[in-house]
């Protein structure tokens, strides 16, 4: 890399501005119908997941789990289990092989006990792990372990947990009280805002626990090859796995660890952050060492239901507004449960997204005897619930159209659109009104103006009540992160391979990165491939930290631009020295800048007929021996033909950038979503008949990928808003519905119709003005069901999920 190139790349890290170097024209980027890389493998069942891994001699490991929500192991007898045929090893919490703690952080380094002695929720992995010839034998062995438990009192409800008389949920970590995190986010002066208000409204919302439900069960495989671990991870963060593993057993050199990150049966971020994910690997490593065999650790289906999204809790709001819908103050208090990363708050969107000058939000997080709650597509759920309900309650209280209230308050950091627009211009973006564009497109599609009506006033011929709902917020990519990408032009056929280990959870992002590389290199999309599963030391942003497309997109682009330069330099330079003299350049007498590449063919710009296909240019694979050798001897079969050899065509790119969480960026792109429901007032059932989802993604790289996130987000959102709840028995603390029959994720019939609309204002901070979309819809959509139901029945059901019993209750029928 020349100094100039380095300077140019570093300049790109300054991401507080619009992309300065977009392409003049796009061939693959933004084209519909680009064949997805993983499509054929997945459609044919050939795609391999960690659960599919079977190695010769492999053992299966299963964990003991607590039958009680809060209990301590007083003693444990594993002798019967050890005697079972097929049981090869049992690891106990009191084994000397286990250190007091190891780095088991799934998100950031975090030191944790590997096998616990005390369970803080029913179902927690504690005490022992068994490795056996089959999962079934391991299961049988667990049942043969005699455990003397000392049960402790427990608490499940967040507000009960705050009471001074409440049992301590986790006295080991929080010996004095269950409240373990308090934080206030404050902007302006809410009391002043209330004084200026014409009207002050108050309401409360409650959100129950929901969870990710990864289709692939939690699992992992560990094999020792001598002192080198080979590890198959079902984890969205392969780089973090590797970093943690490197710290185990007194330290394992990074260059001895091989990670395999196969296709991931999605877990939407949640599962990967669980310490018992890495804990599984740690135990598997010890068991594999003990037995000399590879070990696959697995959870059963039920065990994937412990833990969940971090929005569970109770939220109280007081909102001041002018009669025209100008909101003057938002004051809130929220009590959340078990948040592992308790710093995302719940009123931040008012600050990031609106001109509301006075905001106060107090977050309290309490420990209860349920699993940890972690960002699960995603940490912004609570912020979205707040924004959706505050805006819709205001519109309702004033009798206004909620789309008008949104547009009236759109802005940033307490300032209106004038300020935001001038910042857009300063940063080099087009000045476009993203929210207005999204709202107008969505309204036209759903027929808002014709269908909108006063709450509780429209009964349909089928007897059900008709409702419309609307919500909005900003775009959804934090855009912070670091990424390393390598691209190599393969010998023989001149195809390009992108390297950068990351988890493929199905977003089709790999295809999008290929599209970027193809356009930057001047290659056909079918000549570019990305294999994210192999660990060659480069790690890209993976579906974590809410950032992929902008960071990886830049890294791919940086690599591709450098590689193109390298190809053109090679094309104008003498090729490898041979025994018979060096081969002349492919384009003799030309300079790199006189050449270009299109459709995988190098050509002279001034004379396009002077061309050579990349495939021909790159020569054959190296290390071939004397025939067609890298040294360029004539191949005996083809008299007189030489095989010139270029230098390896490989380049790497990287990107490091800050993001919006740090407050460094203003959010410029918006999203708007619309929902139409029919409510049966006799049964309380809510039918979601139509969803219109509008996302400003700045620029579309991969249409089908973006639309997939809109469809998927709509379904997941509707599930969360209407039917998904992890239910615990208040008497025993036992989780009651850890299965797919009783935890109701949406089926094909749960939304009547979805219209997807993508808006391209170019106001994203990523390459070509892109922002990501993966978390957006699923996060904003869940609470949208509340205003839609309110519009149908004229009453608020701010208690999620909005199940039929809750609807009937507000209707006075239950």
């Amino acid at each position: 890399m020349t100094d100039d190139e380095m300077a140019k790349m570093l300049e790109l890290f300054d991401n507080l501005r619009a992309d300065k170097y977009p392409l003049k024209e796009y061939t693959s980027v933004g084209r519909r119908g680009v064949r997805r890389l993983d499509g054929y493998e997945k459609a044919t069942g050939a795609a391999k997941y960690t659960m599919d891994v079977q190695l010769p001699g492999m053992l299966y490991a299963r964990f003991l789990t607590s039958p009680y929500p809060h209990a301590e192991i007083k003693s444990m007898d594993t002798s019967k289990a050890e005697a079972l045929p097929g049981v090869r090893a049992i690891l106990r919490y009191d084994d000397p092989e286990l250190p007091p703690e190891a780095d088991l952080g799934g998100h950031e380094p975090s030191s944790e006990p590997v096998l616990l002695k005390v369970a803080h929720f029913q179902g927690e992995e504690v005490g022992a792990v068994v490795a056996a010839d089959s999962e079934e034998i391991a299961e049988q062995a667990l049942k043969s372990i005699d455990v003397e438990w000392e049960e402790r009192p427990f608490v499940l409800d967040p507000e009960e947990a705050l009471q001074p008389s409440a049992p301590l949920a986790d006295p080991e970590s929080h010996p004095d009280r269950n409240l373990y995190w308090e934080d206030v986010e404050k902007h302006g002066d809410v009391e002043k805002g209330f004084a200026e208000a014409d009207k002050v409204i108050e309401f409360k919302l409650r959100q129950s626990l929901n969870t990710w439900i990864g289709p692939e069960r939690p699992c992992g495989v560990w094999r020792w090859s001598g002192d080198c671990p080979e590890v198959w991870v079902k984890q969205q963060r392969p780089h973090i796995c590797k970093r943690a593993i490197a710290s185990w057993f007194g330290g394992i050199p990074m260059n001895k660890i091989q990670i395999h990150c196969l296709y991931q049966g999605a877990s939407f971020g949640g599962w990967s952050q669980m310490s018992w994910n890495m804990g599984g690997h740690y135990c598997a490593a010890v068991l594999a060492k003990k037995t000399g065999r590879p070990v696959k650790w697995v959870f059963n289906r039920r065990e994937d239901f412990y833990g969940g999204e971090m929005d569970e809790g109770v939220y109280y709001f007081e909102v001041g507004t002018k009669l025209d819908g100008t909101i003057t103050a938002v004051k809130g208090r929220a009590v959340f449960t078990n948040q592992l990363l308790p710093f995302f708050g719940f009123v931040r969107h008012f600050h990031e997204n609106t001109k509301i000058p006075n905001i106060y939000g107090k977050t309290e997080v309490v420990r209860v005897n349920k699993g940890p709650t972690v960002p699960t597509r995603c940490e912004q759920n609570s912020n979205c619930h707040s924004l959706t309900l505050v805006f819709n309650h205001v519109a309702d209280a004033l009798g206004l159209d909620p789309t008008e209230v949104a547009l009236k308050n759109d802005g940033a950091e307490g300032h209106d659109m004038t300020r935001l627009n001038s910042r857009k211009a300063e940063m080099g973006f087009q000045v476009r009104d993203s929210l207005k564009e999204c709202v107008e497109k969505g309204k036209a599609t759903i027929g808002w103006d014709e269908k909108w009506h006063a709450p509780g006033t429209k009964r349909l011929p089928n007897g059900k009540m008709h409702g419309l709902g609307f919500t909005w917020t900003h775009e959804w990519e934090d855009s912070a992160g670091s990424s390393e990408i390598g691209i190599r032009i393969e010998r023989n056929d001149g195809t390009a391979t992108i390297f950068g280990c990351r988890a493929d959870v199905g977003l089709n992002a790999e295809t999008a990165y290929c599209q970027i590389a193809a356009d930057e290199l001047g290659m056909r999309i079918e000549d570019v491939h990305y294999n994210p599963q192999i660990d060659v030391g480069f790690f890209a942003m993976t579906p974590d930290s809410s950032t992929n497309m902008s960071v990886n997109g830049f890294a791919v682009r940086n690599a591709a631009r450098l590689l193109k330069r390298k190809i053109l330099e090679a094309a104008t330079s003498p090729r490898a020295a041979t025994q018979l003299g060096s081969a002349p350049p492919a384009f003799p007498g030309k300079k790199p800048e006189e050449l270009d590449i299109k459709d995988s063919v190098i050509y002279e710009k001034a004379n396009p007929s002077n061309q050579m296909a990349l495939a021909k240019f790159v020569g054959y694979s190296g290390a071939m021996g004397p025939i067609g050798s890298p040294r360029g001897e004539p191949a005996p079969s083809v008299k007189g033909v030489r095989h010139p050899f270029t230098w390896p065509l490989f380049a790497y790119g990287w990107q490091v950038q800050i993001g919006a969480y740090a407050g460094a960026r203003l959010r410029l792109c918006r999203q708007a979503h619309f929902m139409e429901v029919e409510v049966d007032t006799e049964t309380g059932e809510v039918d979601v008949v139509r969803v219109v989802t509008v996302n400003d993604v700045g620029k579309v790289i991969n249409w089908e990928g973006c639309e997939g996130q809109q469809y998927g987000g709509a379904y997941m959102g509707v599930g969360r808003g209407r039917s998904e709840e992890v239910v615990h028995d208040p008497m025993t603390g036992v989780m009651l519905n850890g299965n797919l029959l009783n935890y109701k994720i949406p089926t094909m019939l749960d939304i009547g119709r979805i219209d997807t609309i993508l808006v391209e204002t170019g106001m994203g901070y990523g390459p070509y003005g892109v922002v990501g979309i993966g978390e957006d819809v699923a996060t904003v959509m869940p609470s949208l069901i509340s205003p839609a139901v309110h519009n149908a029945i004229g009453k608020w059901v701010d208690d999620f999920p909005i199940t039929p019993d809750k609807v009937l209750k507000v209707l006075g029928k239950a």
Partner: protein
Amino acid sequence: MSQAAKKVPVSEAKISLVVNGDLYKVRVQSNWTLQYVLHNELGLTGTKELCNEGACGACAVILNRRAVLSCMVLAIECHGKTIETVEGIARAKHSLVEAYVKHSCMQCGYCTPGFIVTAKALLDRNPNPTEEEVKEALVGNLCRCGTYPQHIKAVLETASNLRGG
């Protein structure tokens, strides 16, 4: 033998299965499901275990021309039967596969084979399904990633193509 092992008498049997046109002779334990045998013993890993209780459709296979949930079928009961899995559908180059790729019907892809198998069974018995019939056929297949609308397009388009439309 320990006491615990005595409690679970497991009998074994050698069965024959014709899977995707190939004859397999396989020794199975009486409590093994067809899903387990296909996935773990025969290496046909496209037949996925997801819910393991007949609630999700990911393990669907075609057994004697009918889509069944292989996690709810004991392998030992399938002796002599003919089974088609997603691998067989792919090997036969059924046009559903390309339609699924074209319409981007997969995200994480874990449930995708089960959809293809269910859709294939539908098209075998009903070459001209309505949208409602497609939905009805596929409603038992759960997709956590929410790809549902794309499946409907792919199945209807395949049906039309197979009819020469």
